[in-house]
């Protein structure tokens, strides 16, 4: 069976926009992703090193901000679990489920793994500074016209275009 083509990008964008409107109307907040990672990190720290997380400022501030006692009882954790399921269903329907390592044409597997790891680390740090990632800060920020969200959005694109040249060997 052949892979089914991707959706028209404008249609996908329109649907995503509608989903975001519905989300804001029902929940009063936008979509997100990196917040779930943060919740998992906090939850792990509290389980593995309770004493350390008790005294460390980052975790303390997280606890003050989120009044729920369990960091995993978090909106974004549930949403991201849904993303995992939704993407799986979509991949199943469109016949895209494969175990592969995707990389640029002139790249070794090992280099791709290292690059993916470094990229992930940068996102982890950057999304904390930006108080959200492409979904939480940029997209949802744009929906509610938040100044901070829109600044983050333009910085992400600016940063990517700024550094794209130096890492072109990874992709083309």
């Amino acid at each position, binding site marked *: 069976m052949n892979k089914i083509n991707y959706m028209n990008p404008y249609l996908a964008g329109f*649907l995503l*926009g*509608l*989903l975001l*409107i519905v989300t804001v*109307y*029902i*929940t*009063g*907040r936008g979509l997100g992703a*990196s917040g779930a990672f943060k919740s*998992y990190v906090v939850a792990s720290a509290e389980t593995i090193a309770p004493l350390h997380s008790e005294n*460390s400022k*980052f975790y303390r501030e997280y606890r003050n901000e989120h009044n729920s006692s369990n960091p995993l009882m978090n*909106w974004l954790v*549930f949403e*991201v679990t*849904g*993303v*995992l*399921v*939704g*993407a799986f269903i*979509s991949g199943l329907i469109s016949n895209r489920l494969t*175990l*592969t390592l*995707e990389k640029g044409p002139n790249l070794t597997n090992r280099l*791709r*793994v290292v690059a*993916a790891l*470094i*990229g*992930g680390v*940068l*996102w*982890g*740090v*950057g*999304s*904390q*500074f*930006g*108080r959200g990632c*492409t979904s939480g*800060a940029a997209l949802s*920020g*744009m*929906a*509610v*016209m*938040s*100044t901070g*969200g829109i*600044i*983050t959005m333009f*910085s*992400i694109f600016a940063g*990517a275009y*700024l550094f794209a040249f130096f890492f072109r060997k990874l*992709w083309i």
Partner: protein
Amino acid sequence: MGPLVPDVVSNNLNLILAFFIGIAFGAILEQAGFSSTRKLVGLFYGYDFTVLRVFFTAGVVAMIGVMALSHFGFIDMNLVYVNPTYLWSAIIGGLIMGLGFVIGGFCPGTSICAVAIGKVDAIIFVIGVFLGVLIFAEGYPAFEGLYKSEFWGNPKIFETLSISPNLFALAMVCFAMLAFWFVGLVERKVNKEPLKQFKLRPYYIVLSIVGFILLVSAFTLKDRKSAILQVIQDEQYVKSNKLDVMNVDEFAFRLMDNEEELEVVDFREPNDAKTLPLPKSKLYTIDNLFEKEPSKHLQVRGKKYVIVANDEFTERKIGVIVNELGLNRMMILEGGLNYFKEQIINFKPIQNPKTLLESYTNRFREKASKIIPVLINRNRTLQPIEKKQQRVLGGC
């Protein structure tokens, strides 16, 4: 009125909804092709601009939609999470994420989609994100200064630029359209495809008509709040509008009776209200009427609401707003509080009452002028209506 959380949709149901919203989110991202890292970074090397098209279409649609919801009074934007602005943190964070994008080839949301369909590189990326957050958490004392510098509050972009929201949305739409056109050119050049001839298709016409109608309506239709506030500018209309009036004696009687159902909705300035705080009253401003939480307190069944202000004309204006908003029916106080003060609190008995009514009035008002100041004194602790403006906690 939205947002539906937490009164219509409870906090627990909200978590379940989050799961389903996530399913839709993940499915759309995957269908758009965001589970492929080569497709994602395409926009930075010019061979595939899918991400830019999806992202900006979604952003613009959502922006206009949310704007329309608030424009027509369906959602109280005071309760919606607006990402805070920490200038330097936002810029530096964005640049770091941009760097991470061209090196790692994903962003957190898309990496989860890619994990779901079995991309090994995405699994590595996700591990990286965990490590990154952990590094930030452990190094927090070192990052905190930058993280919290240049805090601007939670401004909206049109406030920062001091332009109208409509204008900003229009600029954003134009920017997106220009970008779509431009990246189409770049994409064909990079992939060495021939330029496509522009063909007028029927749905182009439909789309442009819809766009035009949206544009015109955005700039001509007044939002609900200013439309209603416009109505009360018409003095003749306000005066002729029929409202139920409670006369001062009845009002005094009900106050002294400490009636359960009575609810005094006080629209005076806080300072005026402090010098003469009425029993059973809550302080409101006209803006409160348009907000979700405060207006909810005005819709309790079985309550008898009385609008109170210094003069009757102001009361009438507020009565008109209340009717336009479809809140509970409210009465207004005859002559406003100024008249109430003159007739009841500082009552001067009618000299030589000639009729029975006059002597009854004398008797009642003399009694009231003694009791009501006592009630008022007991009520010195009056506070303005508590605006439970708990914003939803969102973002990251």
